[in-house]
């Protein structure tokens, strides 16, 4: 990839433990380039590798957590193919004493138990919060069990679905814990959705969220999707050749594994691959694009089966447990988010709201659509990375201005790569607290 970057990285490697110690105190406002200890400079590399283990937030020793399975629509008949889907699954971490409760929303395709949500749970639990984690409305479990239409993508509908899930979850646990106040956070798509959920809550008032923190959110979903899809345009042959791309990457990893002394494919292996310069910048982007596609493949397929939409599965076909699904995967993984929007989501929305145009819909899928609400509301905080590739500089400037005074900005970290970095988790708790002190007065 980057011999100069590699050198920089190894230098930072030496410094990072020291910097990490110095940075335990949260820096207010804008993080300075020099003082931020997250070690990986490249945007794609940070996104893929995350945070080195020794710099990550640690699991609290006393963490008490259990799984909730919520039957949101008891009447719903689920296809036999999803025989294992018994309801929406959430993690519930609980304190013994009266404490604030935070709901967390996962990013695209991810579930309630994703690593990122785990780390956020650790950070909040250490700061004394109860936590309930929610799968993304784009996750197959959500589509099958908790989505009213089973067609994810519309921020308002997805927020209403999430809100119903939160109410059901709260219903389930409210007799077991004591709660002082409610908080909300989400990362990536989940961050954008958190804004819509908070808006809905201001109407319904079940929770009266004191503070809402968005971590690396998309400003506009369609624009972010275009930027992610563009990562696949630069691989040889473009996005239609991801099969060949995948094989080539795998061959290269295999070769590297053979030569080295590795027992497992673990983080150390990935770091070594990165440091060896085995993967070019374009290829690292391609790997990210491919992983988004793998997530969206699950979303497209689950939605199509649930709605009998005839998009990738023949209309009226009832798939059996023993049926091979490989070809459906191979089709779904080659369909872009843009295809999904144009060919599946938009026609669906047209039926729901006759007369709506594509441009109108695209415009609605973002924060600008509820800008008026967000602007005059001090309860929102946002965490941004200067080199997050799912938004551009104009988006970054917009977020800084929209949430002025309630932002944490980091010089690097890519998309979510620094989320589990200790300082970031301290900052997240910090942002929630600032909001707590000011939130009530301004309502």
């Amino acid at each position: 990839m980057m011999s100069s970057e590699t050198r920089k990285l190894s230098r930072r490697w030496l410094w990072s433990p020291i910097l990490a110690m110095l940075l335990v105190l949260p820096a207010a406002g804008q993080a300075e380039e020099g003082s931020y200890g997250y070690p990986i400079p490249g945007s794609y590399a940070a996104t893929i590798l995350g945070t080195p283990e020794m710099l990550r937030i640690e699991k609290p020793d006393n963490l008490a957590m259990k799984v909730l399975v919520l039957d949101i629509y008891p009447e719903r008949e689920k296809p036999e193919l999803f025989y294992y889907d018994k309801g929406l699954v959430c993690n519930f971490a609980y304190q013994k004493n009266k404490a604030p409760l935070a709901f967390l929303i996962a990013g695209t395709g991810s579930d309630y138990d994703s690593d990122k949500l785990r780390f956020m749970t650790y950070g909040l639990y250490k700061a004394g919060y109860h936590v309930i984690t929610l799968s993304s409305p784009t996750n197959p479990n959500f589509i099958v069990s908790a989505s009213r239409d089973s067609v994810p993508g519309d921020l308002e509908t997805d927020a209403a679905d999430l809100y119903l899930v939160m109410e059901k979850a709260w219903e389930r646990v409210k007799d077991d814990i004591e709660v002082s106040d409610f908080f909300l956070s989400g990362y990536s798509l989940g961050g954008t959705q958190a804004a819509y959920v908070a808006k809905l809550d201001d109407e319904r008032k079940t929770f009266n969220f004191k503070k809402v923190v968005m971590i690396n959110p998309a400003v506009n979903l369609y624009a972010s999707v275009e930027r992610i899809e563009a990562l696949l345009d630069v691989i040889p042959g473009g996005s239609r050749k991801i099969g060949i791309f995948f094989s080539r990457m795998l061959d290269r990893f295999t070769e590297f594994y053979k030569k080295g002394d590795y027992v497992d494919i673990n983080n150390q292996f990935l770091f070594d691959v990165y440091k060896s310069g085995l993967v070019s910048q374009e290829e690292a982007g391609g790997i990210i694009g491919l992983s988004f596609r793998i997530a969206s493949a699950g979303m497209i397929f689950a939605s199509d089966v649930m709605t009998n939409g005839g998009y990738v599965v023949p209309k009226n076909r009832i798939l059996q447990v023993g049926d091979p699904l490989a070809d459906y995967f191979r089709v779904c993984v080659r369909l872009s988010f843009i295809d999904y929007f144009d060919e599946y989501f938009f026609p669906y929305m047209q039926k729901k709201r006759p007369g709506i145009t594509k441009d109108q819909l695209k415009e609605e899928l973002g924060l600008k659509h509820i800008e008026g609400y967000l602007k005059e509301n001090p309860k929102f905080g946002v965490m941004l990375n200067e080199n997050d590739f799912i938004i551009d500089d104009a988006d970054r400037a917009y977020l800084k201005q929209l949430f002025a005074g309630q932002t944490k900005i980091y010089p690097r970290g890519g998309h979510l790569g620094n989320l589990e970095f200790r300082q970031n988790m301290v900052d997240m708790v910090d942002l929630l607290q600032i909001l707590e002190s000011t939130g009530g007065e301004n309502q």
Partner: protein
Amino acid sequence: MKKLSSCVSRFMLLLCLGASVCGCATTKAHLPPEEPPMHSIEEFTDDENMLFVDDPWIGFNKNIYKFNYYADEKVILPVTRGYEFITPGFMQTGVSNFFNNIGEVKTLYNSLLQGKGGKSLNALGRFLTNSTVGIGGLFEVAKSMGMERKPEDFGQTLGVWGVGSGPYLVVPILGPNTVRSTTGFVADTGTRMAMVNAIDPLENAPEVETGLTALEFVDSRHQVKFRYHKSHYPFEYFMIRYLLMQQQEFQVMK
């Protein structure tokens, strides 16, 4: 789930029968005829066939996968959770260490069969160290002395000898495998039974033997983090199949 106890294999046939019963088909009545979808695989023939794995018994395999999911949910995981609840953490670690240490014997003879001197010495060193300093294998001390655990089994030995993996095979209870790894499992289990019979350390205590077998079974589930369908990903079977084949290929390389 590797290295399950010998008694498991005795039940396999029975379980196969059980699994075939729960895989019965749903009827397709009352539905209008199928219509072709907007996108199908024919569009994408100019790209490589991603994640291909030879799986001629897919119908059987997927139904066993489903059976295993229910066996896990209804019986094995509740028992495992009960064990984890009543047993203090350090004891669980001790139990795992104990059975892993016995597993070093398997690693030792398979490393020898593969002609891997370094690995054989490593396994021997680990077994001797953990059995003595580690008090009968209850403590893992060899690792801190630089001897990492590098398990080998007869399936891998067959691979090193040039035997192909054979088709993918989901074995009841045991889970995702190939014909080669299943053969290896049977051979290793047989070898172990023969060794136990020859040494016969528990001649007069069949109850203890049964108890140990049960404990080993529970411990082996305790050690495996995989949960069927936890991902809720509709293509989980397909992904696991590919990863398993890939993992076996990687293991044979080392």
